[in-house]
């Protein structure tokens, strides 16, 4: 079967939340299309709604209005468990605060998604990925025993273990110093290129955004521009 050209599609997405005196709209009328293997950055200041958009595109949350299609699947019509099944098979995540499980070792954290999906060679895959991120010798360390940069490398290895078709990264280097952050970004793009994964990256960092093929700029819940030059005033 030929994979469709369009990997992620959002049509007129809107998201509002209930607050004490009525409701607050976080996203207005967002439409976008991301093709297979593309790298896309969503750029914006804090509170601009970029993380909310990421959660809708990844199927972590449901939109109040509009449609989201991931690999042709209408996420907005699916239940929590159906979306979880899609995430398990074709989505990877890298979070700003790493979010490793403290009671599992580095290797166990990496193999967790594979084990949840019932992949039989999880351990080999995990060791291989740890080698690729330069942490083979720390496989049995617990997160508390690793530095921030090392933890994020484990998180990247975890994101790639199920060989996902799409990777969502939420401010992957924001909690790290500049040099470590740079290394993490390099690693992310390297693995992404090797595996031909679609990358959706949320950041407020222009330089990082510039490494992606396309950029969407967000302000107050809407896209303002997709032009990189205009992004220079962000952040």
């Amino acid at each position, binding site marked *: 079967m030929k994979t469709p050209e369009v990997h992620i599609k959002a049509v007129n997405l809107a998201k509002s939340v209930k607050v004490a005196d009525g409701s607050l709209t976080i996203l207005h009328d967002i439409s976008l299309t991301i093709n297979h293997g593309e790298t896309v950055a969503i750029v914006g200041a804090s509170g601009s709604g970029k*993380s909310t958009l990421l959660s809708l595109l990844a199927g972590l949350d449901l939109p109040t209005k509009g449609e989201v299609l991931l690999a042709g699947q209408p996420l907005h019509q699916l239940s929590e468990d159906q979306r979880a099944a899609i995430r*398990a098979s074709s989505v990877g995540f890298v979070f700003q605060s790493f979010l490793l499980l403290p009671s599992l070792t580095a290797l166990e954290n990496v193999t967790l998604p594979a084990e949840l999906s019932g992949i039989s060679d999880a351990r080999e895959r995990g060791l291989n990925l740890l080698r690729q991120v330069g942490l083979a010798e720390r496989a049995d360390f617990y997160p508390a025993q690793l530095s*921030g940069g090392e933890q994020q490398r484990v998180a990247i290895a975890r994101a790639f273990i199920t060989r996902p078709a799409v990777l969502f990264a939420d401010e992957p280097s924001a909690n790290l110093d500049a040099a470590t952050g740079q290394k993490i970004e390099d690693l992310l793009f390297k693995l992404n290129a090797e595996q031909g994964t679609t990358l959706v990256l949320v950041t407020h960092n222009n330089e990082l955004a510039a490494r992606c093929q396309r950029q969407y700029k967000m302000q107050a819940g809407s896209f303002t521009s997709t032009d990189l030059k205009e992004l220079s005033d962000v952040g």
Partner: protein
Amino acid sequence: MWAKIAWRLFWRELGRGELWVIAFALFLAVVSVVSLTGITEGVKAALMQRSAQFNAADKVLRSSQPFVSDIITQAQQQGLTVAQQMQFDSMLFAGDNMQLATIKAVSSGYPLRGQLQLEAAERPGVAAEVQLSPGQLYFEARLFDLLKVQLGDEIELGMSRFTVAGVIVNEPDAPLSVFGGSPRVLMHLDDVAATQIVQPGSRIGYRYLFAGTAENLQQFEQALTPQLNVHQRWQKMDRESAIGSALERAERFLLLAGLLGIVLAACAAAVAANRYSQRHTQAVAVIKALGSSERQIRLLYGSHLLLVVLFSLVIGSLAGQIAINLAQWGIGIYLADYRPAFSWRPLWLGSLTCIICALLFAARPMWRLSQTPAIDVLKQPAAQGRVDKLQLFLGAAAIWGLMWLFSGELVLSLGLFALCAVFAALLVGTATLLLKVAKPVAAGQSSARRLALANLRRRIWANSFQLITFSLAIFLALLLYFLRAELIEQWQRQIPDGAPNQFLVNISAAQRDSLDNFAREHQLTLGQYYPVVRGRLTSINDEQLQQEASKEDRSEQRVGVGRELNLTWLADMPANNQLLSGSWFGSDSQAQVSVEQEIAERLQVKLGDKLAFSIGGQMVSATVSSIRSVDWNSLQPNFYMILSADLLADFPATYINAFYLDAERQLLLNQLARLLPTVSVISVDNIIKQVNDIISQVSVALSFILLIICCAAVLVLVAQVQATLEQREQELAILRTLGARYPFLRNALLMEFALLGAMAGLFATVLAELMLLIVQQRVFELPFSPHYTLWWLGPALGVLLVTLLGWWQLRRLLQIPGAQLMRRVLQG
């Protein structure tokens, strides 16, 4: 695959504390229920067996009609052993002498329980455990003197002649009355027919004695009861004795006290489960984001709870069963022939308690955990301290359910539950108010103190809950400590050291001087002489009484007491009696009677009624001038009817007296028997020993419960402090970063816990004093006396316990360098 992950997570999480707290809480619940029910069952069984020994059987059916072979066949078919017994009064003749005696004729096999000890003519001075053979007649010792006969002499009974074969030394089911009665004679049932004493209309008591397993006995009783006629009834087994009622009170108290410990432990489990769930919220969000379904999460964390429950259940049941076996071994030491039985009841009751606690206290947070949405992976963790109303409701329902399960009484459980709810509400209200008031007070304080107060106030809801559990824990420990002391003292007061243990019955007026001399000579302290005249109540307000209860004509005629009463006259009311209505005799009271409350109710007698007694053929009338309550638990001569002196003084009376004799001087009793052969000596040493043994057993059980409650209390404190660990970590990191130094943080922390402990201790003290007041007045019927020790012990215990536990758990946190702490907080 999820099982592998679940097991891995479980194994790693064991090191983090909460699972151990849940496991230990459930273990405490199981071990306390199993051991308490098991031990009280054991003591109860021992009591029933002892009572069986006193009845010579496990079960006795009394009848006024001749033996029915069908009943015996049914019992044998049910696997029971059966013996028969007849009892009647008859004259014995020895030459020119005659004496009315109570004859007991028993079948072979008697006694089924206990020991019959007889001293045979061939072996004088040796009491042996024997069974009676046909053709033999055994006498109570005093009968020899009354009939002027010796062993081996011939006696006439009805149409038969017998040789006196020996002396009755110990008859297991002899009437345990300090008043005695006619002298007793034992013969074999097969010899009764030849005497031709049994004629139509003779007053004869027939008894069927049964022995066997509890199950067979119960089935037999259930099957036979519907077939019984009005002349047949089951004999009540010793349940109303002093020991029986003391034990019943003790059992209820033990279970209820045990229950409070269980509730505390369950609270600890709930707090720990909540924290476990809170700490795993983010992990669950991550796992869900990575593609796990809700079902998988439920399996993952459900299996953790299941493993903990199984572990606690197995270890708790084992420990409980060991405690039961130890207790049974202890009972076996003082109760000969004790046959301990294994029972499943404690085990299933323990398991049920564990499952109720796990499901209703700990399962809800785990369930809520599985519902964490995947989107939470992008959010800050939700604030702690939200009250889950459903969990509160489930917890309350579980507490009430357990109260009902243990007390077996709906009304009692509802009342107790309502009381607890009111206490909880009062505590929350007061705590909240106090913490709010603390704000202006804090203004002028040192900064460490201000921080401590600010901390307490900020976590106002969490702290109110902590305060309740701390207070409850300290309250229970205090209450039980003081109550245990009071309960034991109360029981021991009933049998003070040196209380009379030898009762002398049937003392004639002429023998009083000899007895006084004997007592003086041997330095024995005699008590009061109680005169006794036997008489029958014949009419109330001139209405003739029916002497035996029977169904047919109950409505037409008032029912009497059905036997002769021991009547006495006393100038002063006995110390263990209480006047309920009317007034005690004055010096010039004429023809009056004071009636005991229970028999007054049974006979429907009230003040001013006229009672007529037949005494030795003469009629005596008396007006009811007072109603008394009598403490039947006291080992003192007690009387249903006490008459004014003018009525009885002229009748020939015998006297009762009592003295204390220590174990080393028991031989004096033989001298006394030789000096006053017609006086019967009844020793209550065995009863006193039995009561003391049970008291010490119950005290051990009480100490055990105190230990369980203390463990549960510490567990609650640990769980509570653990629950705030993360939040405290964050705060400390911020304070450290802002430059707060170690001594400042330490002082603030110590002060916060000391304040919390002092408040909890004070609440606990007030509650404990209130409860003790109620118990003293309602249960022990004693005037209220405040417990001064309580007032310093309670708050001191609160401060010490809470501060130490808080410090013990948090000191490591204070020692972590600021930068490391900050990193831990940032990394979640």
